């Protein structure tokens, strides 16, 4: 079976539920075996070589596919690597999804330790576990049951509890946390914004105009300035037009410059990561002991 076809068969959507479960089981077992083998037999150098090689090959595939000359097949511009792009992106998505598990594992470890040792703030860790488990169970329950409200509009129990947790607790908590920013911004603007130089004065003038132009009050304050007639040229001094002028004529070129600068920086950074030249990539900043495992660690200590 040619490579792309094999890849397409492997990454194609499951035909039915049992096929999906079989694939999931096989993938988990295979991944676990591969990880265990890699962990057991690969030392620091070996692990590094493996990661550097996978990173380089992944980058090479996308780069080559983009730059390699293409020919027309069934209305699509393709080359010999095009068929590999979709399986590679799916694999990338799957690897990315594993980071969610990594996050849960890390949070569980940190909060579990705090809770078991009754460290200060342990009650926050307890709240974390209760919230995580409650939402996890209820969402899975909801997902599998897919129950609908009764004719009287009464929600099933799990659905009602989920609504209370999501709409009644989660949503207001997140919104309240972010709304606190408005208070910090108001306080910070009052404390930090001082006209200590000509540049600061310019910045303040621009801030005043843009802030007022962003709200209807600004437009109302200068609505008396004519926009037409012999004095129509004065319309430029209406706050909404001044604000628009600052955003388009001053902010826009500055943003464009920043975008170019960031893009060049990102290109250089991507190249360094692709070629594993970046300092701190993978294991280069880790001490030998933490990579080699306990035996090596105890050897270093002794």
């Amino acid at each position: 079976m040619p490579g792309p076809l094999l890849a397409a068969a492997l990454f194609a959507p499951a035909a039915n539920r049992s096929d999906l479960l079989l694939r999931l089981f096989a993938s988990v077992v295979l991944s676990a075996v591969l990880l265990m083998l890699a962990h057991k037999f690969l030392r620091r150098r070996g692990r590094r070589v493996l990661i550097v090689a996978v990173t380089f090959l992944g980058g090479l595939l996308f780069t080559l596919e983009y730059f390699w000359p293409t020919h027309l097949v069934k209305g699509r511009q393709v080359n010999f690597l095009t068929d590999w792009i979709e399986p590679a992106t799916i694999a990338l998505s799957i690897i990315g999804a594993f980071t969610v598990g990594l996050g849960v594992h890390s949070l569980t470890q940190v909060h579990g330790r705090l809770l078991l040792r009754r460290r200060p703030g342990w009650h926050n860790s307890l709240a974390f576990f209760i919230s995580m488990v409650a939402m996890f169970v209820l969402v899975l329950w909801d997902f599998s049951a897919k129950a609908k409200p009764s004719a009287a509009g009464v929600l099933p129990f799990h659905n009602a509890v989920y609504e209370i947790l999501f709409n009644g607790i989660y949503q207001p908590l997140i919104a309240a946390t972010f709304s606190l920013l408005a208070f910090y911004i108001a306080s910070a603007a009052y404390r930090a914004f001082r006209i200590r130089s000509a540049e600061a004065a310019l910045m303040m003038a621009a801030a005043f105009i843009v802030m007022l132009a962003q709200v209807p009050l600004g437009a109302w304050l200068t609505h008396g300035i004519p926009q037409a007639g012999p004095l129509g040229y004065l319309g430029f001094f209406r706050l909404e037009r001044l604000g628009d002028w600052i955003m388009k004529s001053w902010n826009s070129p500055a943003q464009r410059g920043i975008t170019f600068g960031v893009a060049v920086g990102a290109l250089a950074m991507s190249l360094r990561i692709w070629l594993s030249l970046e300092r701190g990539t993978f294991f280069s900043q880790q001490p030998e002991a933490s990579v080699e495992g306990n035996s090596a660690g105890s050897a270093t200590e002794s």
Partner: protein
Amino acid sequence: MSQTASPSLWQRLQQIPRGYVYALLAAVVVWQLVWPIRLPIAPSTPTDGVFDAIRAVPNDKLIIISADWDASTQAETGPQTTAIMHAIFRAKRKFALLNLATPAGVKLANDRAVAVAKQYGARYGVDWCNWGYKYGGSNVVIGLAKNIQAAIQIDHDNTPVGKLPMMAGVKDVHDIGLVIEVSGSQMTELWLQFFQGTYGTPLANAVTAVMAPGYYPYLDSHQLQGMLVGAKGAAEMEALLRSPGQGYAIMSAQSWAHVLILLLIVVGNLGYLLARKGERR
């Protein structure tokens, strides 16, 4: 031991306790939410752009609302999403909701869609649908352009999208008339790179006010058809639709909150300049 002199009036003007600033701001916001002073709202050019882009979508094409927001930014993105949905239903077009960044936001946008659809008698699967959260960011956008049903597969309710009546004939990027990205993050870039930039599909966005300055260059280059800027953008869209809603209500509070912040800055600087003048003497 030197005795500390009590601060002068000018110094005290620079050191209003943080708690007073917070209390003043809270009071102003509550005052305007309860007793709003309504001021006329004139739509800006970027908002006109979004409104016109929706009306310019051919009847047989779908609009994607990529609602990549959650509770954190919903004060701005929520009213924006609602106003956009109203504009789409008023123009008798169809839309699909999508979420590429914030799984927790799917329900929030869906609740708004259900409420707006009810007002227009719009039916799920016929006039609008919710593709739900799709993991993969750029991969999903690239996949959508080539084969929508393969990239989305199932909707928010686990129904295969191919079974939704409105999806009949919707195959790839050529069946999409407009993409509107609503978010408090830089998700617009994905659509700019892999959809608008590659296939020329019209694109508009609705972002939080703090994100907006970064997108003006794309308005200049006409890569973005229009932009809703924060709650003001939502209020302007409501003004265009002649149906004041949440955006309008927020703008009164935001207007006076801005005035308060500017007044505080003036007071702080007055204290600073007068104190400095006193020191020179």
